[in-house]
């Protein structure tokens, strides 16, 4: 459903992404991994349109996304939870997710004025907060919360958009191993229910456990792709990880 064609991103001499291609199959839970600075986040931003690739193209359901404004890509069915958290700090956790759940009420600027009811969206939001286990802070402002909470808030918010394809950039950051395991199980369950997910994660234990396929990048280049166990045994992948840390 999503195809990355020869994407290169050049940040003034630094090739953050270097001629990467891969495609995402329907109903997949795909892990995108690589050492720090590999170019994973940059690739996510190319998909959402906040970073313009130097060359190459991205297409969703066979329609080319190049030149399409980021908000239109989101409306076309991409939901993202970013590596660096951006909660709306002036709203409570529940309001953050409620707002996202109301995306169909806000897509027409003028008509949004005539819609006031938030009950359904609030309920949806509360269910999502329960799913990611942060309903206890529903009425708090995000700025006072630890990272693990905000990351899950952003996951819930991305899910509230009901995206065809969910992009998750390190959703397990800030969680302890048992929390990470539970959230991974939630992701796995969502995927089994049909949710398409691209998962960027440094917690390789969980990645290998839940993903069906991995794409590995290092220094902007794709260095491996395939079934998780096989990929992790690939010597090139092993040196990429071991050679750095």
């Amino acid at each position, binding site marked *: 459903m999503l195809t990355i064609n020869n994407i290169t991103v050049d940040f003034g001499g630094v090739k953050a992404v270097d001629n990467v291609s891969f495609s995402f199959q329907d109903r997949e839970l795909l892990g995108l991994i690589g050492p720090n600075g590999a170019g994973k986040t940059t690739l996510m931003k190319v998909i959402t349109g906040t970073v313009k690739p130097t060359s190459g193209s991205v297409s969703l359901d066979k329609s080319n996304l190049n030149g399409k404004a980021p*908000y239109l890509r989101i409306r076309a069915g991409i939901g993202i939870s970013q590596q660096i958290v951006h909660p709306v700090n002036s709203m409570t956790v529940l309001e953050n997710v409620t707002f996202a759940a109301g995306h169909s009420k806000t897509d027409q600027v003028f008509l949004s004025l005539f819609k006031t009811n938030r009950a359904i969206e609030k309920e949806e939001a509360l269910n999502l907060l329960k799913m990611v286990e942060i309903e206890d802070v529903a009425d708090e402002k995000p700025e006072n919360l630890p990272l693990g909470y905000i990351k899950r808030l952003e996951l819930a918010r991305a899910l509230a958009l009901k995206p065809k394809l969910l992009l998750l950039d390190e959703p397990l950051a800030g969680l302890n191993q048992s929390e990470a395991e539970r959230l991974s199980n939630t992701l796995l369950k969502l995927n089994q229910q049909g949710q398409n997910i691209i998962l960027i994660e440094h917690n390789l234990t969980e990645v290998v456990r839940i993903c069906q396929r991995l794409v590995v990048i290092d220094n902007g280049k794709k260095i491996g792709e395939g079934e998780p166990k096989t990929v992790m045994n690939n010597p090139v992948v092993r040196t990429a990880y071991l050679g750095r840390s």
Partner: protein
Amino acid sequence: MGYEISLLTIMGISVIGALSLNMILGFCGQISLGHAAFLGIGAYTSAMLTKAGIPFLLALPAAMLLSGLIGVIVGFSSLRVRHDFLAITTMGVSFLFTGLVRKQEFLGGEMGIAAIPDPGYGKVGFMLFVFGLAIALTLFSLYIKRSWMGFTFDTVADDEDTATLLGVNVSGYKLMAFALGTAFAGLAGALYAHNVKFIDPESFGFIESITILSMVVIGGTGSVWGVISAAVVLSVFPLWFQFIDDYKLLVYGGLLCAVMLLSPEGVSSLVVKLFNKIFKREKAIHVNN
């Protein structure tokens, strides 16, 4: 009695003007340092039209329309630039307005326009008319806050990039805020023109823009009741105290700075905080008992 009525009328017009800027700055988070220019556009439109024999009640919506249209054009600049630069751009709009009008013979140039037709409601009638509009705009403002449009404005005001990644047409919402805010500014300007019956370019200069900005910021950007209270107080101060009128820019500029430093969310939030403090302490005592 006549004096009180004109005072109350001015208050009502100020409330409309302040609420109109509040839609742009308070709701959507877009700075505008040239808001008085849009009051000016409304004032000149209505004055010219009524002088040409068009009924007051038709001239009012025309004033709003023209002001709102030009507002959308200025709003386009908010799409390209970030906050600090938008401040400069809108300040430019203020100077552009006075500069342009001053040179237009058909708009009366430096001399302005005098003998603007009276709407014919009588002094009390006009005051009630202004009050009615001020109340309607207050209700509309409160309604916007409750609507999904207001919800989206909140998100855009807080973080445009995040709003975008939640699928929000940020440009569309900003333009909407500018359209609404400048249209109602046009209304306030038109009312002003028919109240005073004389306008010149200086009536809508930079000082006036700062005055309206003070009302919104001191009242607490976004807080409808805070902005109304500030508009009421700040609109009559210069009429009561001549020295404030003489040193308007100094006094309002000083107040602006003080609020920004002491309580960026405005005086109203300071009052709320104090109230909460006292109230919560009482509650704590109750719990202890």
